[in-house]
């Protein structure tokens, strides 16, 4: 399975956004956060989870596949890099292709921005900034064995299904041990396109 990577555990997230602030402090993004926080059951619960780039492995990074400028590099260790600023044309194809809704476009600079797994830190053996500071361990950086050693019985998933498409990712999610469902449903069902209810 995956090597040293980020594990997202929504059961631990308290919605504090330390990851968002920490990401902004990371040297590789210089003041911009590449994480967002989602509320999965707003109005009924305070449940939340951080969304980072999932660093898709198979098919290899849809964002990179659709990039017309070949600006998104995937490194040998599976890190899907932020678009190369000398190549990016700000077309937002990557934004549309990502099933997890991760890449952003800086509209002013017409450049893509995305989590690159803090390569400036991970290259030195440090964890990404978000997983370093996460006060709850909702973002954990390490191997699956290290995670399981600290949280006995924890189950993780790295394969998600969107309609008929399966995506295997380099970043994994912690899933409820008693409700392991494989692959994990990714995204919400499409119910409306251009104002028309497509369920009918």
């Amino acid at each position, binding site marked *: 399975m995956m090597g040293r990577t980020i594990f997202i555990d929504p059961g631990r997230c308290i919605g504090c*956004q330390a990851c968002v602030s920490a990401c902004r*402090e990371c040297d590789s993004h210089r003041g911009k956060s590449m994480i967002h*926080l989602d509320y999965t059951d707003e109005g009924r619960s305070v449940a939340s989870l951080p969304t980072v780039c999932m660093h898709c492995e198979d098919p290899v990074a849809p964002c990179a596949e659709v990039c017309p400028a070949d600006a998104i590099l995937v490194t040998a260790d599976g890190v899907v890099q932020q678009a190369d600023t000398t190549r990016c044309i700000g077309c937002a194809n990557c934004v549309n292709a990502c099933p997890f809704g991760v890449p952003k476009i800086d509209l002013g600079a017409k450049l893509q921005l995305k989590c690159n797994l803090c390569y400036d830190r991970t290259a030195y053996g440090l964890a990404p900034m978000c997983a370093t500071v996460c006060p709850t361990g909702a973002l*954990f950086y390490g191997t699956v064995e*290290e995670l399981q050693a600290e949280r006995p019985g924890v189950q993780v998933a790295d394969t998600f299904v969107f309609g008929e498409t399966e995506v295997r990712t380099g970043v994994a999610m912690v899933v409820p041990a008693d409700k392991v469902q494989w692959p994990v449903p990714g995204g919400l069902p499409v119910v409306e396109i251009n104002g028309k209810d497509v369920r009918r």
Partner: protein
Amino acid sequence: MTADPRAADHGAAVPPVSSGHRAAVPLDPSLAPPGTRAFRDAGGIPADQWHADQDGETLVPTHCCFCGVQCGMYLRVDRGGKVFGVEPRNHDINRMRLCPKGINAYQQVNHPDRLTAPLMRRSRDEEFAEVSWDEALAFTVSEIRRIQEMYGKDAFGLLGGASLFSEKTYLVGKFARVALRTKHVDYNGRLCMVSAAGANKLAFGIDRAGNPFSDILLTDCLLIAGSNLGECFPVLTQYVWGARDRGASLIVVDPRETAVARTADIHVALKPGTDSAFFNSVLSVIVEEGLTDEEYLAEHTTGWEEVKAKAAEYPPSRAAGICGVPAEQIVQVARTFARAPKAMAWHARGIEHHSQGVENCLTVINLCAATGHIGKPGAGYGTLTGQGNGQGGREHGQKADLLPGGRSILDEEHRRQICEVWGIEESELPTAGTSMMEMVWQMQRREIRGLIGICNNPFVSLPNYRVVKEGYDATEFHAQFDFFLSETAANAHVVFPVTTWAEDDGVMANAEARVVKHNKAQEPPPGVRTDTWVMCELARRLGAGDKFAFADSREVFEELRTASRGTVIDYYGITYERLEETGGIAWPCPTTDHPGTPRLFEDGRTYHEDGKIHLQVVEWHLPMDPYSDEFPMSLTTGRTVAHFLSGNQTRRLGALVEQTPRPWAEVHPSHGFRTGEPVRVVTRRGSEVFPALVTEAIRPDTVFLPYHWPVPTSANALTIDALDPRSKIPEYKVCACRIEHASELDTVPSPPVAPGHVAYPETQVSRTDPLPPTSPQGRGTSERS
């Protein structure tokens, strides 16, 4: 690179990095919070040698300036000596973790809003003008002299703060008693955890938490009462989740389903203000079902029979009605807590901010004692301090009734001891003063005519804003020490620009009573002085310079150590050097070779003379603001994760403002509001309009307001200034209210003044400007392209 990256780092001064100070790792590695091992084993560059690509950057080891957890962090300092960033630090307390406030804290150090010259005006009708230090100090001293000569020494008051280093809180107490000779000194920790302090003192004879945070990892049952731990102390969740990973049960008592309550085995969503009825009832079940530890009770406690008899008056059938929770849940809590081999109770403002805050804490202590869960690894009690130095801030004489070392100002022997240290006659030492809120009432009645405030912002943080404003407006002279122009400083005649925590050395004591050392990371901006310097200079000009000949924090700390020697709160064995070597020492620490006392009562003895826990009988009573047909609901207040106390510091930091830009009113869907709609919250003290956050995570009979903002969206314009009779803490956590639909132009007449208070002008506290767009409120917005 010689340091072991797996070792917890306690940070000697950097640069240069010295590996010699890094040997001690007091925590058992097996107790390390989850999620950190991978990091420590990564084998990479230790954080203190991590320089990224910042040529010339140095990292200064210090701690966060905000809450009572006191996370270790590094401040990144550039070649020019300016703080420009933060780097996580592998300190025992937080093991690299930081919350959003901690991550953004450094931004206030060189913030453009910093005050860099003294501000002065001779009357409140004038504008502030920047003046020289000499002019500001001379005017302040002449006003102090004038007021004290005309109205007596006690007509001048001093209000300190629990975010100050302990050295400075010590100076606040000494300055009031020795330089000003006034009895009126108190501090904003009065609004924080004095109820817990009072209860702990009554029961155990010592005012601090019984166990270190790391004990949470060892417990089998964790009871969290009245703490939104996830938002107020986010870094502590790693301990809670660690306990849960090991199979511990989690019980949360809170009217709201907070992030931690969401994951609890039992979430008791009780009606605000009914805590002591609930805990009495839990105790009654424990007794009824024979789950008490009779042997422990007989050997280690007094007063058990009376407590037991009182608890029996609160069977679950009765308490369920009072608290608005199912009776079965009370039984379930009792069984879970009492049957656990090791159980712990941690509480915070949720049960302490009440007119019976001390009693609420006592009922929790009764539970721990009745089940023998005291003084063992994984078993005991703790209280979570809101301010960074909430614990240390009250230990050395900043409180109205206390002298350094927690000595009583009314005890002859204690007075004699301190007068000896201070070199004054006992007849010169004032007696006990009044509490912070009472001082404001005295200002309203013109009994206190002049005031110096240091590191506090009562215009946002005290209840019943109109009373506070009237009190401050009535003062003839008001000076404030601050580094930003707070709402309270804006009312002053003189504002002294002082240092932030990163510009001075000092110690703080966190919620575990662990004393930690903060290190200076940069020189203060030109024109800015330390609070220590200002107090010493004022004292010199008042004629007490020989008693305040301190050059820096270290000299003050040396006197503090001596002044605390031989007391329960003994700092004598703690030195700056030891703090840097060990990463923190818990008091009492009587000698320089004493390891400190992380866990209390391990020998079964408390700090009372008989060595026993003095159990106290508690009778529940209704909150002070009565419910009526007009005001049928409970208003409760609290914090958000992005902001700190009165918001004077965090409401200026971009990322935190973006995360939580404005307050909201949290209401249950049953009231018919939609999220973002304007909702008017009305109490007997006023009304204000907030955007609604509609959620099922709150009781239908309760409204929640975060309290970090000033009028016109100030929770504390609506809360009641009723006090606990013992701790004098205000009842922030419950008052009667109603909610109404509002429109942007809607105004209602100001409600009548609450009985028992001085009449004040009818000033309507209500926003009339259009509400800003309000979706999604409060808990942050998702950032997407």
